[in-house]
Each structure stands twice: as C-alpha cells, then as structure tokens.
C-alpha cells in the first residue's frame, strides 16, 4: 500500500475519531457516549487494519478479533444498566457544592459523636439532618442533592 493512500486513510480515521471523542465528552447521556465509543472502536479497528496492511504484519489480525468483541461487550453492558435520572442528579457538582457537601458530612459526624457521648457534648447543638427529599421542580440546594447521592452510594445503588 502506497504511503499516500495510508496518509489519506489515516487523516480520515483521525478526523472521525476526533469527532467521536467530542461526542463522548459532550454526552449528554451515557448511551450517547457508548454509541460514540463504538465509533472510536471502529476507528481503532481501522487503524490496526491500516498498520497491518502497511507493514504486512499478520500478527495484528487477532487484535482485530479482540477489539470487535470488546466493543460489543461495552455497549451491551452500559445499555443494560442505563438508568433514568433527572438532569439535576446527572450534573457534575461544582467546587462550592462539593465543599458544602464535605462540610455537611463533617457536621453530621460531629452530631453523631455528640449523640453517642452526651456528657462530652460539644458546643454545637444536635441539628436535625436536612430533609433528603426536595421539590421535583426547581434546583434543590446542592447539599441535599449530594446527601442523596451519598446515601444512594452507601446503599449500593438501586
């Protein structure tokens, strides 16, 4: 295979993979990402085929089999565990929200310690934990969202 053909093919594949990675980054859902990752897998398959053709290496051919297998397993797994989640739960916490979550957790631990040893109770009064259930519409305070997340993670997810 001439080097010109190889270069043109390489540019095509690279551009396709770059666009697919753009979609992987942008989302918006896991399913979009997994479809984009399938395209990335196809691009990798194409690259391996191109390298194999250019260098006449036949030992790369089993790699093609493995890649075709792995792409299938990945997309099926993610599709199986795709869950319905609201926009509010899906977003990534900002720095302030993460700090607020940390603060909240620390305060709860202190409360718990105070409850277990009432005689050694600190100056902080035992606060009732924030109500975990918020309103459906309108963005809830980050503290509650992250608290719900923590609870869910602790339960092993539902």
């Amino acid at each position, binding site marked *: 295979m001439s080097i010109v*053909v190889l270069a043109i093919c390489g540019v095509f594949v690279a551009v396709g993979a*770059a666009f697919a990675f753009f979609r992987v980054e942008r989302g918006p859902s896991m399913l979009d990402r997994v479809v984009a990752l399938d395209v990335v897998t*196809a691009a990798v398959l194409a690259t391996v085929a191109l390298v194999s053709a250019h260098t006449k290496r036949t030992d790369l051919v089993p790699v093609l089999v493995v890649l075709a297998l792995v792409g299938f397993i990945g997309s099926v797994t993610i599709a199986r565990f795709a869950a319905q989640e609201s926009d509010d739960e899906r977003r990534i916490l900002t720095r302030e929200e993460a700090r607020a979550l940390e603060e909240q957790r620390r305060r709860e631990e202190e409360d718990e310690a105070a409850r277990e040893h009432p005689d050694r109770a600190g100056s902080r009064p035992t606060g009732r934990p924030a109500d975990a259930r918020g309103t459906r519409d309108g963005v809830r305070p980050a503290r509650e969202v992250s608290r719900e997340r923590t609870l869910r993670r602790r339960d092993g997810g539902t």
Partner: protein
Amino acid sequence: MDAFAIVPGSTVAHVLDTVAAILFLAGSFLVMVAGIGIARFPDLLARMHAATKPQSLGLAMLMTALALEIRTGNVIWTLLLVVMFQLFTAPVSAHMVGRAGYRTRRVREDLLRIDELTVDLDAINAEREARDAELEAEAVRRANEDEAVRRADDETVRDS
C-alpha cells in the same frame, strides 16, 4: 508455493493492491462520516444511525481490503470471522442501546415522524386502565350488595 500463488509485481497483484487501496479509502471515509454524524446529529437514534455505518459496512470494506493486501489463507479466515462476528453483534447492541434510550426517555419525540411504539404502549395502558376501572366498579357493586344482604339479615334477626 502452489500454482495459484500471485506473483508480486504481476498485473494481478497490481489490480488487487489497487482494489485494496480503494476499499481502504472507502472504509476510512466511512469512519470519518460516522464521526461527523455522531457529533452533529440531534438525538440518540440519529447518532446510532450514523454510528452503524463504519461498524458493519466500513468494517467489511476494511477487512476485505486487508485480506486482499495480505493474501494468506488463515488471515483471510480470521478476517472473515471478525466481519461475521460484527454482523452478529452489531444488531444486538444497537437493539439494546435503542431500547434503553427509549425507556429512559433519551429519544426526542418531536423528531420522530412515526412512533408506533408509543402509540401501542398508550393503547395498552388505556386498555389496562379501563379494565382496572371496570374491576373496581364491580368490586364496589359487590360490596354494596353484601352490605344490603347483611342489613336484610340484621333486620330478620331483629324481627324474630
């Protein structure tokens, strides 16, 4: 070397190399088209439509090209295996992703020209609700009847 071996540098070898190059170009072009489509299309189903092109047709082209380029028996069989495997698995994963996308409401309904699944599901749900309402009305009617019978019994006891 058997009698059908293709001599390097012969006309046949040139033809095979050219066909392989064309197929490589076409397959790589499909990968690029899929990338652009997946970045630009508006919703999950449209993106899946774009993504399936290099997965089956593009891969078949690339594997054929590689087989024409390498021309060894066991490599050709392995490449055939890759293509067969992809042809079997691509519909399965596409089905699962599409189903999960529909169930988790990742499909934009305003872009669908025909949506038979939603129509069918709505029909089934309406039917189920109607049946539930009927059963409930039946239960209420029966409870009322029982109540009437009991009241009648009470009156009989009181009279006697």
